[in-house]
Every structure is written in structure tokens, then in C-alpha cells.
């Protein structure tokens, strides 16, 4: 369904510009969308994707430029106005009321009422029509809090369809979805497309963009790099367009694993979470953990780190055996954990960059009774330079940094300690391509220097590209181990879905 010039664009954006009190964040960007088209919008963080989508969906007003929707001039005053024109947005964060049912959420704010009493049957009937039409797996009368994340997202999409939207903007729709759920979403997108609905698809995940889109518009630093037919690009070329420089290859991993076993987990059990887990980790090795969301990978790491108390088993770290791991002791022994949830478990947003970096080794920063500012400064500035953390200074609040730089700050916190085994839980989630590449490079350097890494990742290319060995988990058990050439996406997926089987 490649666009032909004969059909008229459903949405035309000309020279859209956004200036926030003097700062140009979007500069003269053209964008168009045809009926039944999935048009991907890509770029690094700060490239202007969100700004453009917010202008189109009426969240913010453009500073200059013009838009046409279905041939008519289009100046949305707010999101409601945009919805009236048939344009809705599905945000990364859901706007759903957990205690209301699917139908009640879909009709929230537009309930049909007779004499002040809501006509629930009407809502259920109409919601049901849409669900049937697109064959969605969505229980109409169930409360949203009992739904899975992917189902919640479907509710958001149904909300858009119920508003008769023919343009849907999806902002990172797969960020919280598993591989299977993502596949389902793609099927639904395909169905929507066949119905003539157009989709603006914003994502960091390049493989998805190639699967789902017909055209790709690349933005960089608020300017448009170009619009391309998806078939005319490949991943490397797209990355280069986004970053504006050559990234020869994302992963250039060499195997630095040595024979010495540094960490060995035996019979680790927490009933209902992870059972009878045993594995070894070698010096300099990158050991990957694959599996679906909810397979128990994060929980296993937190058990090893002492965050979740265990029911049985032990972990041996550099010859020292722990039957009841405690965070403080594990850190001292050189095992550290970089959490998946950067905002709630990683950064301390209101504190300075330097304070975040020295948090775990503050004991060493003390001279006499007091923390030595000079020592803190020298320690943190060294690592800030080494990791190329982009800050306006060591006293900038970490909350004000970009996602990638925040992640680097959390990494820095551990790299200044005597880390010997580093657990990375989804280390590149939500950060842009450039920062990702730097983190991969850093991982290689660390392994070369003899540090061992355990990495949980839901991004297959990253897992396959970076790991020497991969353990796959499903329902709290290790279902497969892969190494070398045996590491294949299909094999990982089949182990990950091996419910009810034991190794």
C-alpha cells in the first residue's frame, strides 16, 4: 500500500515551527500522511518527534507554519478540537481509570445518559462493535485494573476508534509490551490500515519501524533530515541518518570471558517467583537473560542482590558464600545492580550529578567527620569525562538530564565503586541510539578489564549482539541456555514461551 501521488494526503503539515521562548525546538518541518498509511517518525531524544506530534494532536500550538487536514485548514485549539477533526494520540502513559470497566473508560466524558442515568448498555454495545470489528481480545465489562498492559493499550486504541478518529498517533506504543503482544499490536495496526486509518508511529525500536511502516520521516535537532520509503532504507542507513554520523556497527562485541568462575548461584528459590535457579558467571563474561516480561528475571537479580529475600539456595561470590544476601554486603563484595526502573530505583532526581555518583561510596569520601567536597568533585569529574556524561556541571540536578545521561550517571555510581560483577537490567530502555552505542562500548571495555556482566534485556538484537552466553527464563525457571552460534532469536523465543516445561 505504498502511497501514490494520485491520492490526496489526509494530513499536510507545512513548515511547522515551535519556539519555546526563544529556543527553536522544531524548525520548518514538512510532514504528510496518506489514508491507510503507517508513517514512522524517528530521531534521537530531543529531535522534535514529540513536539511535532503534540502540534498535530493539539496539545501545543505551533509558532509558525500551516496544517491542512482532509483538504481544509487545520488549527487545533486543544486536544478535543483535534479529536473533532479525527486526530487522536495514544500516549506512552495510559490515561485510564483503573476502577472503571473497559466500556466505561472508552465512554468516559461522553457517556450517553437518559434522565441523568448513564446508559451503560449503549456504551457496551458500541464498544463491543469496535472490538468485534477488529477482533480484539478485550473483555468489555472487566475493570481496567485487571487487564494486562497490552490490553490497556488496546483500550486506548478503542477510545480513539470510538471517537471516529482516522488519524492515530502512537507514541512508543511497544515500550511496555512483550514480543508477542507487540506482534498482536502490529496485526491490529495492519487491520486499522486496511480500514483506511492512518497512523503516525513514533518509536526508538528500529526493527519495529521496518516491520510496521510504509514511510519514515527522520528528524534531527528539530530539523527534518528527510522522508523515505521504508523499503529504500536499511537499519544502518537509518541509524546514520538519525545520528548524523557514521555508527559502523552497533555491537562490536568480543568474547573476553576467562575460565575463572566469579559468581555461582545454586538452587535459588523464592516460591511463586523463581524456583531452583542455578548458574555460573565467568570473569569478563557477558551473560544475558532473555525471556518475556514477568518471567522472573528482574526478581532473580533482586534476590541475588538482597532486595528480595530468598526462601532457599545460596550465591557464591569470589569464594564467599551468601545464604541470605543483604544489599550492603553484596555491594561490598563487588556485586551491583543497575535497575530497570531508572526513575524510581536509579537516579535521585533532586540531587546533584556528583552527589548521585558518590552515593554508594560516600564512606570513602569522608575526611575526618565530614564529606570532602574536593574529593567528591575529583572522583565524579573523572568518571563524568570517561563516560562522556553531558551535563552543565557536576552540580546540575540529575532530574534535568536526558534519559541516556541519567542512565550513565547511575552507571557511574557503580563504576566508581569496586564493582566486579555488574547486573544491568534493561540498560538501554528509553534511551537514544547514540547513548545506546556508548553503553555497549563501555560494556566491552568493562569486560576487557575483567568485570563480569549480567544483562537482562527484552531487545533481541541487543541480547544477541552483546552476550557471550544467554539463559532464557520462563515462569520463574531457566528453560534454556545458549552460547556461540546457537544464539538465535527463534530459539530464544521458543525457550521463552516454554510454559510448564522444565529443563
Amino acid at each position, binding site marked *: 500500500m505504498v502511497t501514490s501521488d494520485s491520492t490526496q494526503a489526509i494530513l499536510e503539515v507545512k513548515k511547522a515551527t515551535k519556539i519555546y*521562548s526563544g*529556543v527553536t525546538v522544531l524548525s520548518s518541518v514538512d510532514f504528510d500522511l496518506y489514508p491507510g498509511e503507517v508513517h514512522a517518525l524517528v530521531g534521537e*531524544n530531543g529531535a522534535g518527534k514529540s513536539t511535532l506530534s503534540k502540534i498535530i494532536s493539539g496539545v501545543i500550538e505551533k509558532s509558525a507554519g500551516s496544517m491542512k487536514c482532509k483538504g481544509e485548514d487545520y488549527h487545533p485549539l486543544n486536544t478535543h478540537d483535534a479529536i473533532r477533526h479525527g486526530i487522536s494520540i495514544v500516549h506512552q502513559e495510559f490515561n485510564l481509570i483503573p476502577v472503571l470497566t473497559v466500556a466505561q473508560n472508552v465512554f468516559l466524558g461522553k457517556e450517553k445518559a437518559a434522565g441523568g442515568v448513564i446508559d451503560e448498555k449503549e456504551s457496551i454495545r458500541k464498544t463491543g462493535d469496535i472490538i468485534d470489528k477488529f477482533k480484539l481480545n478485550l473483555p468489555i465489562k472487566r475493570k481496567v485494573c485487571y487487564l494486562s498492559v497490552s490490553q490497556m493499550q488496546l483500550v486506548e486504541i478503542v477510545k480513539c476508534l470510538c471517537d471516529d478518529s482516522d488519524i492515530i498517533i502512537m507514541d512508543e506504543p511497544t515500550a511496555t509490551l512483550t514480543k508477542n503482544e507487540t506482534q498482536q499490536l502490529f496485526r491490529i495496526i495492519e487491520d486499522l490500515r486496511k480500514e483506511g486509518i492512518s497512523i503516525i508511529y513514533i518509536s526508538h525500536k528500529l526493527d519495529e519501524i521496518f516491520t510496521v511502516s510504509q514511510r519514515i520521516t527522520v528528524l534531527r535537532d*528539530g530539523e527534518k533530515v528527510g522522508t523515505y520509503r521504508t523499503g529504500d532504507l536499511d537499519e544502518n542507513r537509518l541509524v546514520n541518518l538519525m545520528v548524523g554520523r557514521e555508527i559502523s556497527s552497533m555491537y562490536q562485541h568480543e568474547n573476553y570471558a576467562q575460565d575463572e568462575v566469579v559468581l555461582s548461584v545454586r538452587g535459588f528459590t523464592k516460591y511463586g517467583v523463581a524456583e531452583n535457579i542455578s548458574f555460573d558467571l565467568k570473569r569478563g563474561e557477558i551473560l544475558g537473560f532473555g525471556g518475556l516480561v514477568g518471567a522472573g528475571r528482574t526478581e532473580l537479580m533482586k534476590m541475588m542482590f538482597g*532486595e528480595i529475600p530468598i526462601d532457599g539456595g545460596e550465591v557464591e561470590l569470589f569464594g564467599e558464600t551468601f545464604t541470605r544476601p543483604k544489599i550492603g554486603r*553484596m555491594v561490598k563484595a563487588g556485586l551491583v545492580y543497575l*535497575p530497570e526502573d531508572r526513575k524510581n530505583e536509579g537516579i*535521585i532526581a533532586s540531587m546533584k550529578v556528583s552527589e548521585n555518583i558518590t552515593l554508594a561510596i560516600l564512606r570513602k569520601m*569522608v575526611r575526618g567527620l565530614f564529606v570532602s567536597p574536593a574529593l567528591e568533585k575529583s572522583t565524579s569529574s573523572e568518571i563524568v569525562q570517561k563516560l562522556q556524561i553531558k551535563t552543565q556541571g557536576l552540580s546540575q540536578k540529575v532530574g534535568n538530564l536526558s534519559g541516556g545521561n541519567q542512565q550513565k550517571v547511575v552507571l557511574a555510581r557503580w563504576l566508581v565503586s569496586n564493582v566486579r560483577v555488574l547486573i544491568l537490567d534493561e540498560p538501554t530502555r528509553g534511551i537514544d541510539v547514540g547513548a545506546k552505542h556508548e553503553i555497549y562500548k563501555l560494556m566491552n571495555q568493562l569486560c576487557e578489564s575483567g568485570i563480569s556482566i549480567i544483562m537482562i534485556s527484552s531487545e533481541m538484537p541487543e541480547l544477541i549482539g552483546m552476550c557471550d552466553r544467554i539463559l532464557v527464563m520462563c515462569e520463574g525457571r531457566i528453560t534454556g541456555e545458549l552460547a556461540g552460534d546457537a544464539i538465535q532469536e527463534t530459539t530464544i523465543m521458543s525457550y521463552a514461551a516454554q510454559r510448564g516445561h522444565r529443563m
Partner: protein
Amino acid sequence: MVFTVRGDRIKRQDNLRIKAVIVRTGVFWSLAVLMIVLSLVSDQFLTAGNLLNVARQVTVTAILGIGVTFVIIGAGIDLSVGSLLAVTSAYAAGSMVTQGSLLLALLIAIGSGVGFGLCQGVLITKFNLAPFAVTLGGMSIFRGMTLLFTGGYPISKLPENFRWFGSGNIGFLPAPLLILIIVAVVAYIILSKTRVGRYIYAIGSNENATRLSGIDVNFYRTLTYVIAGVCCAIAGIILTGRVNSAHPYAGQGYELNAIAAAVIGGTSLNGGEGTIYGTIIGALIIGIIENGLNLLQINPFYQDVAVGAVIIVAILVDRTRIGMQEKLAKVATDE
């Protein structure tokens, strides 16, 4: 293009920063304005006698406020400080009257402050109970214990050396003011120069991240309640010395003034932010408003209204400040 974008962004951040600094130091300016206005409308305000009187009165609120500041920065709350003041000073005064040893009386005050603070802290951290509920219970329990201990009557006829803490002087400086200065300096040093202070800020800002950095979060959170307990004991000694009796209803309602002082001074009720000098300025603002209304012979019932209004304004200012921070963050991350 890239460079102009970045350059403009930095300029805009600088503008926002200047505004943020003005808002952040707003509490200081409000105190200054308040003092200027009062010195214009009342010729008694700016006399040494009156100012020392204000200082004497403010010390109790300020010291309680300092204790509460530690707790609130650690994302807790302590509603029990008024009752804790009463129980520690009743024990101290009782011991003073019966045993006659000043040292013992002081040790009992501080010791019971530490002990009761520890109990509350352990309940909150080990059993993961809401600080609001535990200290609300504590407020009632400690008051009841005071009434039980005193039989409902004030313990008075305290010796001169005990009274000195509330009413004595060193040169022209009232003893309570000197004690406040010492407490404030020590508290400031702990909060901004030591590991303990850094951890308390970190816990208040993001407890999970702090725990995952290998820090014993429960220990430091408990410590904030112990520090608050010690502050209650010190404030209690001063109050008892000043009025020459440990009254069973001493300190009733003081928890609100203490929390108000912290909040007016910019301590965020969400935790992670706050300063000692802010709390002292907050206590001064409350004290000076009360003093000013007295001097102007305005119905004293207006005092509560005024203090309440100041609290709400302070929280409003805090909101604005957070809004500015978020704006700053947005400009910094571009979108």
C-alpha cells in the same frame, strides 16, 4: 543551527534559574519585608528588649522545627513532637525535684527523647507503618504518659540552675538563644556536611534508589525520629526553665507550629528538600507575626488565622518552585 538551539537553551535556563533563586529565597525576603513593615507601624518592635523577647519565644518552635525538618526531609512526618516535649520535660522536672541532680535531669530528658524517638522510628521502618499514623498514636500516648506521670498537676519549684536554660543570660544573650544557635549549627553540619545528612536527603528523594545503592535506609530513617526526639527534649528543657514548671499540657499544638516552621522555610513535605536556616526563618516568621499582632493590639485569635495563611502561601510558593524546576528540566531535555 544546532549551536543556536543549544545557546538559546542555556540562556533560557539561566533566566529560569534566576527566577528560581528568587522564589527559593522568597522566605528570606518575606521575613525582611515583615520586619520592615512592623518597625514602621510599631515603634516598640525594633527595640532590643522586644527582639530578645521574640528570640526567647521563637527558640522552642525553632528547635522543634529543626527536629521535624530532619524527619520531613527523610520523607516522614512527626506529629508527636509537642507531646514528646511534654513527656521528656515532665520526667526531667520530676527527677530534678526529687533527686536534685541537674546532670541526671538532663540525661533523663535526652535519654527519653532518644528512646521514644527510637520506638517510633522502629515501628515505622521495621513494620513499615505510616509515619503519620504512628506519630499520631505517639502524640496521644506521650500526652497520656505525661498526665499519668504528673497526676495532671504541673511540676514546679524548679531550682535556679534548671531554670537558667529557659530564663538565664550569658551577657546580654538569652541562654535559650545560645542553645538554639548551637543546635542549629550542629544540625546544619549534620545535614550538609556529613554522610548522615546526605543519606537523609537521598532517602527522602528516592528511597528505592538509595536502598539499592547499598545504604541501610531503615537505620537512617529511624535516626531522623531519634534526632527529632532529642530536639523535643532540648526544647522541653528550655520551655520548662522559662515558665518554671513542667506543665502536663506543655507543648500542646506545638507540633503544628514546628511543621509550619519547616514548611514555611521551604522543606518539601514530599521529602528530599529542606534546610535548617529555612526552618529557623520559618520559625522567626511565625514568632514575629504573633509578636506584631500583639504589639498592634490585634485580637490574638487572628494569630492562628495569620499563621495558617502563611503556611498555605508557603506551600503555594513551593508549588511554583517545583513547577519552575520541571520547566527547567524540560528545557534541558529539549522537549
